[in-house]
């Protein structure tokens, strides 16, 4: 029994959640305050990763990230078949799960919160970070949990751009698939049980923690 897939999954889930959180906070700010009538377009674009089947999304990511692909030519980074590549793929794949709950929560706050902050001389960024975001803390938490869980359960994208390489891109979901392919059904069952147990503990921990 090799536990490295679980550590890889936990690490991937954690890093992806942090990266997406940091990315999405300014994105929501931009969409909420500056997009005006263009807002539906941004929202629609951000939901697109949900449309393509994961393996298909993975295929196009592979084309983009491969050594002679446009990402490598633009940045010089070879991301396909590496852990870093998985983070990029997961961030794109899980983007709607981070963005949508936060944006929806911000939009549902009464306008009077913003108006009051503006009247008191706060600018948009101050209003956003000091008034609006603190009001939607539960949604921030929910979005992070969804992103983490979605990344842990991710399969098609990772199989395509990661290539099932032990200790590097063989995360827990891929390891389960690998054991089934190898006809090691008992090991696959154990892996699946550990993955579910681990995820349950993490989710309970997060949901059980009371927000101040």
């Amino acid at each position: 029994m090799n536990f490295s897939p679980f550590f890889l999954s936990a690490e991937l889930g954690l890093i992806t959640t942090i990266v997406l959180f940091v990315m999405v906070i300014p994105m929501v700010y931009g969409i909420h305050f500056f997009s005006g009538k263009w807002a539906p377009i941004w929202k629609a674009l951000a939901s697109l990763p949900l449309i393509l089947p994961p393996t298909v999304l993975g295929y196009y990511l592979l084309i983009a990230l491969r050594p002679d692909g446009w990402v490598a030519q633009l940045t010089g980074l070879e991301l396909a078949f590496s852990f870093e590549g998985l983070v990029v793929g997961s961030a794109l794949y899980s983007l709607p799960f981070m963005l949508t709950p936060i944006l929806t929560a911000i939009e549902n706050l009464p306008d009077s919160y913003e108006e009051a902050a503006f009247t008191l001389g706060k600018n948009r960024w101050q209003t956003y970070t000091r008034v609006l975001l603190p009001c939607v803390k539960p949604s921030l938490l929910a979005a992070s949990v969804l992103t983490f869980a979605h990344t842990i359960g991710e399969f098609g994208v990772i199989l395509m751009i990661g290539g099932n390489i032990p200790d590097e891109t063989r995360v827990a979901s891929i390891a389960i698939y690998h054991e089934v392919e190898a006809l090691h059904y008992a090991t696959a069952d154990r892996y699946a049980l550990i993955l579910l147990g681990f995820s349950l503990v993490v989710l309970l921990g997060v949901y059980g923690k009371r927000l101040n």
Partner: protein
Amino acid sequence: MFLKTFLICIVCVFIAISCEKKPTIRVALAASLLPPMEEIAQRFEAETGHQVDLIPAASGVLSTQILSGAPYDIFLSANKIYPDALRQAQKGIEAPKLLIRGKLAFWSADPIEPETIPSFLQTHKGRIAIADTSLAPYGVASVHYLRTQGLLDTLRGQLVFGENISQTNLMIASDAVTVGFSASSALFHPSLKDHGHWQVIEGQVVPQWALLLTATSSSKSFWTYLFSPQAKKVFEKFGYVEENDRMSG
């Protein structure tokens, strides 16, 4: 506090994992070859100290990944179109080489005499699991067998298709079907051999192809080992044959 300890543990383990990394031979292979290849890889590791990683997936997925620069050293496929296509795309050191031949296997939940398989199928009412018939060679062999027995038209509506042979094996292992066709390698696998009843169907062979992708000394040594008498012995143990009647293959 707990979270911090947990994070530190994750980081430590990850560092430990990255440090012990030594040059490994990565073999991308069709799922049907996994049972014998696991044993061959283990023997090679014991003999040489090299590490062999086996990476099973659908041949089409593996080919796409190899074309995109996947770090695989050797590619094994039961369908020659994939190694041929890779070779044409300037991947691979030499032309694809015939590794070994696999056989088609018949599985049933109830015991059946080998010679009565056709008549049993004639009256069988339930689903029959086979591998995909457009891409998976064992699926092609299964359909070829049914056609030569004159059963294909009768049974066409009862066939259920696994994307590859391991999905077909999964249908068999989970008793989702009572009859199925698979690779003979399944007969010798601990998870499947004692499950229901297996027979090898003679006359249906599936050639397995190997393509060398990198010319490093470690990948070359495993390549040589793959074609050695020791490896042949393991393949034979899993129901593969080196030579077959000259009509096929």
